[in-house]
């Protein structure tokens, strides 16, 4: 197990280096002038040249890469061309909100998707199975922005039971001290015992979490169903039945446990995808996460920010894959 972890970690570092190298070269190939971006839209040519020198952009690209990697090893991702702020600080401020949204929506997705898949496998081809199929495929294929807009219209505009967006109400932001311990609002409000903020946060979380989680719910339900059906037709299940074990015991203790491998894989992949692709949901619900930052960095060709985000995304995928491998390895049939 330990050698496996070391192997995967080394491979991860190598992957990360490859990602940095490719991204660094790609963003510099795109025609743009980072020095002009640094000084601002209408700066004079003299201002641009001064900035080019200051930022080291007048040096060959391999020298720039060397400087970048040296800084990176010290934990410095450089400065955003647009905001002139350290990228590490900007990511640190935004990433927890996205991670929190994705984690909570994934947990909710598991809580809904898993029983749904289980029920539909148990009652294959019954009306419940048909309903579950309709629901799951609908959740997977429904465009996220459309779902977000419809939910906002119904729950904010018509029913007036949920807020339009943001992480907290304006009154809370203006007139209360927002706790900041870990950067995760849910945890911070729990730790500090501020239940007014917790309640307000949960209210704001519901709609974005549904939108981010919809795809995963469908995916988990379908994946659980198909994995269970496959397992239920295997010889050891038949043997268990012939011993007279109850159907409930077979389903929960033998089949479900073994079906979790593929489900875990898709959930972690969906989480990794959601971490970098929540832009539409975050934009519609004004969620203060990383999605909008990603979109802004790309549209403005803020190359230090783009590389910073790519590194973060790559790290997230590497970690999630590692977690998946560890979970799967709990299955004795899997040899690492």
């Amino acid at each position, binding site marked *: 197990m330990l050698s496996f972890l070391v192997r995967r970690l080394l491979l991860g570092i190598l992957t990360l280096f490859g990602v940095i190298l490719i991204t660094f070269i790609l963003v510099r190939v*795109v*025609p*743009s*002038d980072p020095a*002009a*971006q640094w*000084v*601002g*839209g*209408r*700066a*004079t*040519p*003299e*201002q641009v040249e*001064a*900035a080019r020198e200051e930022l080291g952009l007048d040096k060959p690209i391999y020298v720039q890469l060397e400087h970048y990697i040296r800084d990176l090893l010290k934990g410095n991702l450089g400065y955003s061309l*647009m*905001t*002139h*702020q350290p990228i590490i600080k*900007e990511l640190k*401020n*935004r990433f927890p*909100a996205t991670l929190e949204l994705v984690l909570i929506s994934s947990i909710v997705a598991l*809580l809904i998707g898993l*029983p749904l898949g289980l029920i539909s496998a148990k009652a294959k081809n019954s009306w419940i199975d048909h309903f579950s199929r309709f629901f799951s495929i609908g959740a997977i294929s429904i465009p996220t922005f459309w779902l977000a*807009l419809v939910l*906002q*219209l119904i729950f*904010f*505009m018509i029913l*007036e*039971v*949920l*807020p*339009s*967006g*943001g992480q907290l109400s*304006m*009154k809370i*932001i*203006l007139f209360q001290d927002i706790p900041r311990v870990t950067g995760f609002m849910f945890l911070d409000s729990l730790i500090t015992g501020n239940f007014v903020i917790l*309640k307000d946060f*949960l*209210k704001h979380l*519901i709609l974005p979490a549904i939108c981010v989680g919809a795809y995963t719910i469908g995916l988990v339900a379908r994946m659980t169903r198909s994995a269970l059906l496959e397992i239920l037709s295997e010889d050891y299940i038949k043997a268990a039945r012939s011993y007279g074990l109850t159907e*409930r015991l077979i389903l*929960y203790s033998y089949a479900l446990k073994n079906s979790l491998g593929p489900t875990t894989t898709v959930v972690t992949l969906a989480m990794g995808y959601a971490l970098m692709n929540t832009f539409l949901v975050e*934009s*519609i619900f*004004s969620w*203060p*996460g990383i999605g*909008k*930052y990603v979109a*802004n960095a790309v*549209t*403005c*060709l803020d190359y230090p920010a783009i590389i910073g985000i790519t590194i973060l995304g790559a790290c997230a995928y590497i970690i999630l894959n590692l977690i998946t491998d560890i979970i799967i390895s709990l299955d004795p049939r899997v040899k690492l």
Partner: protein
Amino acid sequence: MKKYYLLIVVTFLLFTFFAFTVIGNSQTDEFAFYAYNSTPVTDWDPSVEFSNGIVSLNNVYETLLRYDPLEDKFVKLLATDYTASSDGLTWTFTLRKGVKFHDGTELNADAVKFSIDRTIEMNMGASFIWAPVDRINVVDDYTVEFKLKYPAPLDLICSSGYAAFIMSPTAVKSHPDSWLTEGHEAGSGPYKLEKYQQERGEVILTWFEDYWGGWEGNHFKKAVIKDVSEAVTRRLIIEKGEADITIELPYEDITSLQDNKNINVLIGPSFQNLMLFFNTGKEPLNNKLVRQALSYAFPYQDVVSYCLEGYGRQGRGPIPYGLWGHSEELFQYKYDLNKAKELLEKAGYPEGGFKLLLTYLSGDEAERKTVELFKAKLAELNIDLEIRGMPWDSQWALARDNNLEKRQDIFIMYWWPDVCDPYCWLYSNFYSEEEPFFNLCYYKNKEFDSLADKAYKESGIDRDKATKTYIKAQDILMEDAPVVYIYDKKNVFFLNKTFQGFKDNPAYPNVVFFYDTYREK
């Protein structure tokens, strides 16, 4: 296993019950809420910020003067009086007494000199507006003198919404350089920066008790500017009364919102215009007759009706309607395909038969619709227009490519003023440049250059005389047709009916001066 699911279901129900409580109307008179369409500030350093931050900084900092272009008058802020010498080279400002910065120190001539010198030395953002200034002298505690290298309209420069802010030297000097950028301020404006949540796109302002203007009467004590980038969300919250003011909703929404009894729709001129820049250095657009033909082939009214739903007007020269230097007497091209055909024939292209590349900003729907309409009209002249959407940086980089042949034939972009001065258009967009910067029609005309320079110098001494010279310079542009002046955009603001006191000032695009606003009970 059953009990686990029971637990999960109970937790879920509790969670739902806990969260689903009816939200009351959050509208109170305790704060004003501006739902802005983008990030409300990119850099808090007043010497550097040259972007959206204008909406936040103008409430926290003050300039010597504020310009009201619609009435062509200056409002005295930190200066109570000013004079210019007859040669326009010496400007003397008398400062307001008893003005305090947010750190408690007092405004004086040293602070003015420090602020502007700092902006010039930092050489970032819009610091170039101070190019005419040779040196700043402190005459006494409340008198400051500007010596210029050449005559220039210093009153307009001092009232710019960018790079003209006065800051507390004590606060700035006692912190590292990055302190301001990180989200601190050293202003004297009516509001202090209470909180800046960059990740939330939220700027929270709170009243500055010692503001020289006082707090008598009806004012907001807190104001919030928040990035609500989704137009649909902005519309929902203004309709629900959650936001007090918002901008940039789709033109199609305006009529229905005008019918909403809870919303005021305010429409006024903006100084933003959309222009097509012809590549005057490359065939066939190096031929004046071809450029004139294409100026006649442009469907101006269709664009205004279709892309702006009528909320704009055809441009008449580069200076937008409402700004001094604009003339209603100036020649204006009208859509006339027969005239265009005649001119093409004269230019040696009787059958059209050439191909042009136009670049526009990808994601800008108004630009895309505009160029699509132009493409359809050019097709009738047998001219093939290839339209290419690009990110701004790539679009601009292509326009500045060293190889002239690689550059686009037509470039479309908006322009708006950094200083409310016609020179801002004439110099940036048309003045001869060795290396292209924003003269993206690559226009070179010495007569025009000298007229523009002359007008700029005159504007520091005699505004009427300068206006006439600016009009002469624009006459040359209309004849040479390096640019198609598509439209002057209108500003549209959506206000909660209870939100009063707001007046649009196009010299400060999208800025809400919260001190002037109040809640009508």
